[in-house]
């Protein structure tokens, strides 16, 4: 049996995403995957799917879907979007079932920039290097969704409808932990002080590659290029004009701009949920502390995913 969803409208950058394609940076390939990876993991857990199963990442452009053949259950998590079925508003985070002719809309709501839709069945879409994640600038992978497109879902399942609780750590993150560098030595002490004391803001210049910030200039002491080197998600790179950009899911794998600091990987999901104008502050911690924090937060996420799986198996979700 197959369910079919027709895309009636999709904003730009609404794409298929899964767990991404890690371990290929040496070939110029970033990991991609969701901007907010916890959102897809939570939505998948609520359906009993493996954490990296292919879903749809919805951008601030929103999406409208018509169920051509059903039923099929979905789960939605991520930003606090306005979710409506046949015009009737629902919770932002929930599991729901679409029957034939049901119409689902997701629009930006009270908070957040990205939302994930997980699907209780297997989406038929293109893969590249074993992943359906869409690499934005090339379109490789599952690709961007466009109006009129039909999504085929093999072996759809039905899951009881229920809200999904949104943990506080899944909300937009305004306080971001960083480790300094790797090129902090190229910046004056006053510039390092600005980074760690002044508020910065998200600007409207953001996409899946990175987020440009506004705030005090962070110009390096000398306008020296560095030999191009590998970059990670979360790197705060500073262009010659002193404007910082934080690199995200589809970032270029190498670059010659100095990185003044690097945001902890776990903080980049909540960072992605900030909106233009939202403020953020950077707090520096020692690398050893960053590793301890990563382990604690991973454990908290796993406990929550396990809790969702238990609720589902007990029939209360």
């Amino acid at each position, binding site marked *: 049996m197959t369910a079919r969803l027709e895309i009636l409208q999709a904003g730009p950058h609404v794409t298929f995403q899964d767990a991404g394609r*890690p*371990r*290929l*940076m*040496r*070939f*110029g*390939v970033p990991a991609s995957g969701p901007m907010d990876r916890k959102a897809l993991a939570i939505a998948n857990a609520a359906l009993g799917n493996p954490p990296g199963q292919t879903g749809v990442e919805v951008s601030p452009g929103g999406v409208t879907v018509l169920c051509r053949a059903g039923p099929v259950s979905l789960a939605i998590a991520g930003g606090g979007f306005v979710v409506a079925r046949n015009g009737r508003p629902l919770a932002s985070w929930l599991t729901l079932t679409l029957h034939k002719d049901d119409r689902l809309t997701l629009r930006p709501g009270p908070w957040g920039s990205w939302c994930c839709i997980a699907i209780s069945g297997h989406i038929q879409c293109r893969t590249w*290097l*074993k992943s359906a994640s869409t*690499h934005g*600038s*090339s379109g*490789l992978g599952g690709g961007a969704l466009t109006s009129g497109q039909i999504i085929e879902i093999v072996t759809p399942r039905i899951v009881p409808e229920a809200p999904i609780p949104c943990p506080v750590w899944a909300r937009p993150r305004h306080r971001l932990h*960083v*480790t300094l*560098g*790797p090129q902090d030595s190229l910046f004056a002490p006053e510039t390092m002080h600005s980074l760690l004391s002044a508020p910065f803001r998200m600007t409207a210049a953001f996409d899946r590659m990175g987020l440009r910030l506004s705030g005090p200039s962070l110009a390096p002491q000398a306008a020296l290029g*560095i*030999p*191009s*080197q*590998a970059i*990670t998600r*979360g*790197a705060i790179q500073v262009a010659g004009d002193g404007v910082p950009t934080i690199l995200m899911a589809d970032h*270029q*794998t*190498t*670059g010659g701009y100095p990185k003044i600091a*690097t*945001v*902890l*990987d*776990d903080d980049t999901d909540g960072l992605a949920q900030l909106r233009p104008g939202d403020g953020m502050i950077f707090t520096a911690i020692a*690398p*050893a502390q*960053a*590793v301890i*924090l*990563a*382990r604690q937060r*991973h454990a908290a996420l796993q406990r929550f995913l396990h809790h969702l799986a238990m609720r589902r198996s007990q029939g209360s979700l």
Partner: protein
Amino acid sequence: MTPHFHPVADRAVLVEFATALDPAAHRTVLGLDAALAAQPFPGFVESVPAFVTLLVAFDPLISDHDAVEQHLTMLLSAITETDFTPRTHDIPVIYDGADLDQVADLTGLTPQQVAVQHQAGRYQVAMYGFAPGYAYLSGLPQALHLDRKPAPVRNVPAGTVIIAGGMCLITTLTMPTGWWRIGSTQAKILTRDPAQPFAFAVGDHLRFRASP
């Protein structure tokens, strides 16, 4: 060669062998990269070689910066330049690039001499970057060194042979570029072959020859 270890957030160590381009540093990067592939540590995720640095990513649930640095120090004490065995690839080129005449003007050569100079280079894949499959090839002859263009050209197709600075590159996607277009090739770097998705390893050697 004494490295500088830079911890990166909660999951990587950047090993820096020099702060400016340096062939010996690049050879050490390739040697350490090969040694790490042969002898990874528990929690190793990936390594990303560049001109004078190697980024080593780890799983923070299993390892930490200190353990990674210790392992890399141990590997560095034993590496030799023979740890890495490059392959050599021959690439056929049609010298029909949209910028060929301008490159000839700027270098004081004829278009034919540009093609001859380009083929005289002995190239090595120094690193990948910019976009999937974009392999930066060092070894462009001095006579062809040009700064990149003031403004990029949009929609440069895959398979375009481009040069800038001391580098040459074969594009793999339709992308903008500020580099100079001197030719085109049918050679595929993004192969679409799941068994070997990328034609070149970092450190491999390339030769270009004019295809009739």
